């Protein structure tokens, strides 16, 4: 009986053995096998067969595989490139449209990608980031759970003492207080300070250039500063170990620099230039053990291996245990790594946050890239006829479909590569502007290998995305039909092209709608009545001796005629300072937890800032000395308290009784996008809250004259500190900064979309006109008017855009309603926004196409019909 050689071995041999050698090698192996069979058992012969086969897997055989084929395909590649270049050069207009729109798309995508990537790196560089948590409070108020991350000072030490799973816990604050630093004759005022417990430096990975993180805050009278600040303060001298004086005269104190921090990276949510230990604050003010006062951030580092959900269950009732009060809030820990992007809580559970914006930006980037790819797809399939003969000849001379697909992919990747280089230059040049626009520190890391890998793969993906459909489409042509002269259906797969155009313009219209809505919302809110008069209104913080000399400063300003009226208050009118749900009045529902904003004033606040008094009167300390315990309410406060006749009512706050003497019209204290909060203006019974002077400049003088007088007086009454002031309208305008960034980005994005889509439309309409040149000629000979021809051609181009309006208009409407819903004070979109946006896009489209169509319609038919 004759055994067969193992088939598997032969198959394996065929994988690596060169074709021209395969048969004889196979034959020799089989021959050896049959001779082996005579000598050995079948099993052993088979094993020997396998072994002999495997021994053929050696360079002497393997290398005989490639040389011929490798050389061949390299030749073909150079041919592909040559043809690609020629095709591009022959159609300069189309190549430009393709290249330019791809470059725009890639640039926009790259910008957005850099931004998004940067967002994900925030505070991710800490070595123990997975063990660091921020403590949050959570309270059930009026049936809804509110969460916030400002906690009691006593929380951190308590956690450290009572929970064995806690490795370290710290309080951290950066209130933005002003500090005067004195070093020799150098005086620098800074507001970029932070207070923290000593474990801060070991908990986070902010490396010290000088000093020891473990011992830097051992002594309360120490300070850690960044390198930048050290240079500012000490120049080229060594800062470490030196002393610096904070404050002025006898009120200040000397601190020793016990550490120099490397400048904080841009991608952290901690911002400070110097840090002072909490032990110093406690040395003066004593330890704070009151659980009701939430004023600091608390960070906790757990021991490795601690289960966070278990720990949260343990720590939940920490406040209840310590205050023996059941109604107070609960504590929970939330990971540091999620603080930047996922720190919005709705009803006690995480519900997104900044990540929502980031996702939108990602979608925007992909859309822009897609629009650019669509241009390429549309133009290449529309112009397929031009390449049809080339495809047919290549096929006839023996090209496989695969090699044609590779050829067309090569072309699109080459184009994407060119576009990539253009956009690299654009990104490099535009990055500083973009960084400033989005207020982030973005960089291109040329030395990072990932940057190049990412860039190249982006180009490759774009090339494949744009090129794969045209490649499959073009390579499928049947040479017989084409060479016989049967033409492809004239417009090719026009339904696909139409769909893609619909998508392009759908995105364009959506963005246009968003531009309109954002713009209208900004206008609407900017024109909102603030309730006070921003003109000629300045505020000035009490720095140095200004607080002490306030009365003389005020009198002299009035005397010299620089100011019409001056009031000292607890806070600038553009800022919230303090609020409470603990106000008591007659007839208050004990469950009412309405928050009231507090402002303290001495006198004439309504006059100074221009509030309208609608009932009662403004405070006037000279005429009515009892006004030190007076209160003025705004309308919202009156409504919240339910007074029908507020004048003469008595309200209680912090154990003091205040009598209501007046009501002012609602005014915007915090955000112009929100409803007006209830505000109470209190008199000046206590002196500690006052830190700001509001000054109404005399409109009879020029602003410069007034400011000059202020500056002179400030020098006289507050010589140590630099003269600083701010106009209320400037400060108010800052409230729109975020929205203005949104506006700039939507405007830019829609501008780009429309340029790219417009370029595509231009290319497409040029081509459609080109192939219908004879038809137009015949129509004209038969008596068609220029208008009717233009009309016909334009309509063909605009139809998909109309469909886009129908499909995408409603979506845009819903999307913008969702966006607006985050602003309590908002416009309603109305029915005209979408038609308006659609009209502007359609108008643009008609403008673009008509350039081509009118020219074609006007052309002399003789020229187009002369030769066949």
């Amino acid at each position, binding site marked *: 009986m004759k055994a067969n050689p193992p088939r598997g071995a032969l198959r394996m041999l065929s994988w690596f053995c060169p074709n021209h050698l395969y048969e004889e*090698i196979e*034959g020799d192996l*089989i*021959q050896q096998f049959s*001779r082996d069979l005579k000598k050995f058992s079948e099993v052993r012969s088979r094993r020997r067969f396998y072994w002999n086969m495997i021994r*053929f897997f050696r360079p002497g055989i393997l290398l*005989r595989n490639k040389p011929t084929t490798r050389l061949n395909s390299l030749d073909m590649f150079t041919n592909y490139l040559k043809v690609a270049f020629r095709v591009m050069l022959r159609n300069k207009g189309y190549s430009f449209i393709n290249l330019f729109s791809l470059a725009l798309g890639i640039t926009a995508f790259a910008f957005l990608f850099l931004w998004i990537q940067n967002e994900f790196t925030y505070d991710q560089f800490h070595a123990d980031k997975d063990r660091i948590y921020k403590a949050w409070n959570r309270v059930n108020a009026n049936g809804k759970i509110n969460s916030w991350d400002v906690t009691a000072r006593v929380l951190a030490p308590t956690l450290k003492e009572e929970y064995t799973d806690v490795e370290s816990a710290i309080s951290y604050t950066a209130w933005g207080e002003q500090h005067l630093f004195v070093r020799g004759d150098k005086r620098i005022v800074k507001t970029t300070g932070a207070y923290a417990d000593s474990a801060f430096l070991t908990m986070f990975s902010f490396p010290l250039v000088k000093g020891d993180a473990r011992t830097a805050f051992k002594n309360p009278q120490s300070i850690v500063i960044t390198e930048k600040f050290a240079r500012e303060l000490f120049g080229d001298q060594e800062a470490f170990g030196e002393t610096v004086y904070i404050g002025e005269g006898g009120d200040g104190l000397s601190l020793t620099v016990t550490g120099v921090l490397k400048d904080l990276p841009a991608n952290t949510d901690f911002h400070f230039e110097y840090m002072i230990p909490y032990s110093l604050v406690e040395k003066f003010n004593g330890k704070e053990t009151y659980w009701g006062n939430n004023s600091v951030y608390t960070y906790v580092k757990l021991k490795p291996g601690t289960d966070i959900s278990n720990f949260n269950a343990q720590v939940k009732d920490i406040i209840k245990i310590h205050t023996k009060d059941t109604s107070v809030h609960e504590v929970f820990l939330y990971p540091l790594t999620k603080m930047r992007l996922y720190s919005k809580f709705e009803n006690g559970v995480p519900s997104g946050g900044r990540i929502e914006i980031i996702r939108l930006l990602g979608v925007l980037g992909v859309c822009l890239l897609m629009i650019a790819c669509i241009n390429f797809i549309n133009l290449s399939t529309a112009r397929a006829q031009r390449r049809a003969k080339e495809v047919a000849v290549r096929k006839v001379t023996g090209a496989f479909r695969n090699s044609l697909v590779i050829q067309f992919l090569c072309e699109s990747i080459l184009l994407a590569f060119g576009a990539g280089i253009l956009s690299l230059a654009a990104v490099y040049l535009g990055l500083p502007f973009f960084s400033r626009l989005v207020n982030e520190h973005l960089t291109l890391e040329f030395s990072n290998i990932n940057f190049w890998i990412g860039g190249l793969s982006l180009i490759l993906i774009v090339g494949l995305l744009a090129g794969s459909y045209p490649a499959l489409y073009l390579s499928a042509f049947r040479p017989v039909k084409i060479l016989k002269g049967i033409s492809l259906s004239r417009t090719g797969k026009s339904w696909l092209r139409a769909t893609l155009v619909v998508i392009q313009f759908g995105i364009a219209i959506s963005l246009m709608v968003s531009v309109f809505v954002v713009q209208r919302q900004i206008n609407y809110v900017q024109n909102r009545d603030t309730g006070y008069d921003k003109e000629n209104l300045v505020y000035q913080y009490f720095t140095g001796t200004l607080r002490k000399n306030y009365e003389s400063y005020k009198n002299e300003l009035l005397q010299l005629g620089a100011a019409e009226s001056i009031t000292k208050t607890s806070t600038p009118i553009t800022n919230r300072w303090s609020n409470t749900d603990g106000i008591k009045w007659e007839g208050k529902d004990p469950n009412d937890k309405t928050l009231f904003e507090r402002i303290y004033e001495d006198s004439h606040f309504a006059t100074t800032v221009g509030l309208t008094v609608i009932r009662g009167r403004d405070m006037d300390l000279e005429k009515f000395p009892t006004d030190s315990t007076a209160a003025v309410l705004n309308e919202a406060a009156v409504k919240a308290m339910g007074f029908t006749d507020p004048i003469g009512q008595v309200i209680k706050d912090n154990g003091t009784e205040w009598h209501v003497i007046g009501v002012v019209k609602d005014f915007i204290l915090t955000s112009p996008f929100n409803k007006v909060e209830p505000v109470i203006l209190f008199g000046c019974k206590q002196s500690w809250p006052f830190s700001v002077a509001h000054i109404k400049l005399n409109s009879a003088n020029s602003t410069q004259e007034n400011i000059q007088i202020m500056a002179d007086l400030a020098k006289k009454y507050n010589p140590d500190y630099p003269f600083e002031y701010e106009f209320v309208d400037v400060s108010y305008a800052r409230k729109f900064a975020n929205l203005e960034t949104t506006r700039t980005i939507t405007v830019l994005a829609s501008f780009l979309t429309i340029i790219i889509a417009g370029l595509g439309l231009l290319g497409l309409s040029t081509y459609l006109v080109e192939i219908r040149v004879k038809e137009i000629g015949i129509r004209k000979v038969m008596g068609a008017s220029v208008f009717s021809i233009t009309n016909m051609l334009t309509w063909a181009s605009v139809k998909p855009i109309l469909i886009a309006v129908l499909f995408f208009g409603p979506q845009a409407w819903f999307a913008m309603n969702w966006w607006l819903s985050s602003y309590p004070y908002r416009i309603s979109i109305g029915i005209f926004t979408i038609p308006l946006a659609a009209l502007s896009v359609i108008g643009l489209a008609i403008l673009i196409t008509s350039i081509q169509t009118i020219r074609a319609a006007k052309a002399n038919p003789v020229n187009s019909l002369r030769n066949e």
Partner: protein
Amino acid sequence: MAKEFLGEFEEIILTLVAGLQEDAYGAAIAEEIETRLKREVNLSAVHVTLYRLEDKGLIKSKFGGGTNERGGRKKRIFTITNSGLAMLKAMKEARIDLWKLVPQLQIA
């Protein structure tokens, strides 16, 4: 052009190709080596050497018929070329020249 040299195994193969004539193909050569020289040799080594000699132009090849024993697969029959023969002769003469240098063996 620098003179080509052959390795020992190459020389054996070349000699066998010259000797076996119409029966010089991979498996046969391997078997000859095993039976005559009592030397274990792997088929793949023989093949690789044959292809290398062909690349050097010392032998040439053509397809021969298949036998039942080898499942009907064709053989590649190698024949020595003139330059191969010249090379073989030159090597043999060089050996003999060298051999003459060795003092003749004394029969003890």
